[in-house]
């Protein structure tokens, strides 16, 4: 058992191992942004109409000079320079958690104001909005339209030119019907066909209400 008495190398090895762990723990960068909502709670945000601003609401908020609303432009700085909502703050998506942006949001929160995020499209504002909500900002709303709708001189002309895809299903039932009706449906395809096509008629008759 004399080998049990030789402990020098063992001690050195163990101390080295512990040192690596200690160095690791010291250099460990704690993320300074933390989630305050669980994934399930974040999912709950998505259907809450009180957390978004529709284009109509946005236009009234813009005209209301009470200083209760701050518009946050999440587009890149080039687009922001070209044109932006009056008095808007530019915080591009990538800089959302930068120290500067954080202090800006903190100030807005302190002043009791409400931040409205807008982007080129709602899609662009969606990510930053969800991130801010998930990390504990309770005064952040999302603008549900595209930037062009806020820009008065652009709004009318541009809007009609751009194809718009919204969350409302825009399936042209007539086109689909004409395709499938003229096709010689073989039994193989029929299964998919029926499933895909038949209920469409129903929504068509109900006037595409949803």
């Amino acid at each position, binding site marked *: 058992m004399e*080998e*049990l008495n030789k402990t020098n190398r063992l001690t050195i*090895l163990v101390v080295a191992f512990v040192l690596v762990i200690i160095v690791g723990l010291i250099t460990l960068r704690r993320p300074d942004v933390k989630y305050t909502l669980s994934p399930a709670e974040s999912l709950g945000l998505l259907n809450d109409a009180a957390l978004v601003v529709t284009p109509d609401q946005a236009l009234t908020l813009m005209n209301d000079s009470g200083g209760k609303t701050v518009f946050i432009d999440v587009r890149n700085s080039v687009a922001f320079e070209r044109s932006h909502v009056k008095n808007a703050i530019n915080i591009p998506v990538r800089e959302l958690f930068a120290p500067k942006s954080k202090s800006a949001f903190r100030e807005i929160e302190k002043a009791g104001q409400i931040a409205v995020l807008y982007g080129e499209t709602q899609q662009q504002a969606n990510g930053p909005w969800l991130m801010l909500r998930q990390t504990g900002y309770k005064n952040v709303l999302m603008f549900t339209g595209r930037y062009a709708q806020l820009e008065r001189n652009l709004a009318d002309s541009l809007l009609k030119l751009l194809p718009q895809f919204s969350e409302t299903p825009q399936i042209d039932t007539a086109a689909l019907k004409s395709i499938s009706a003229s096709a010689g449906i073989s039994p193989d395809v029929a299964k998919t066909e029926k499933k895909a096509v038949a209920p469409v008629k129903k929504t068509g008759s109900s006037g595409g209400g949803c």
Partner: protein
Amino acid sequence: MAKNKRDGTFYINPYLGGVLLGLVLFGTYYITGRGLGASGAVKSTVVTAVHAVAPSHADENKYYSKFLSDDVSPMSNWLVFEVLGILAGGFLSGTIYGRLKLKVEHSPKITSKRRLIAALAGGLLFGIGSQFARGCTSGAALSGMAVLSASGIITMMAIFGSAYLFSWIFKKLWI
């Protein structure tokens, strides 16, 4: 220390050996995402050998065919290389500490022949058991304990529990 270092009786502190082994095991997990193993190499070799001698038999047998795929030869399994490494590492250590010697180690109370038969029987049982448990002491028990897997710890307890029991039954073989 320097004097008796090469006469074959010097062993490193078992805790040092343990920490070294632990670091190797940890390194294995860190690099490959899997643990160490030894019986897997035996299995690969057996599968390859059987496949080489009787390919149709190997394909028919459900167990062999589990480990035979068309594109990769089971021999290229990295456990085989690991075992080659074990042999090299053991040889290196044996050279350093002067333990390289062809011999049969056995208790003075038994003959070499008896020891060899017991070793063969023990290996046979170990071979069967390791297939049941999907790994041996290193592959299932040691690697499993490092990641706190249930199979590793249960297998470890089963191995050592039954080894304690049977070692007293076969006491004559050892002391």
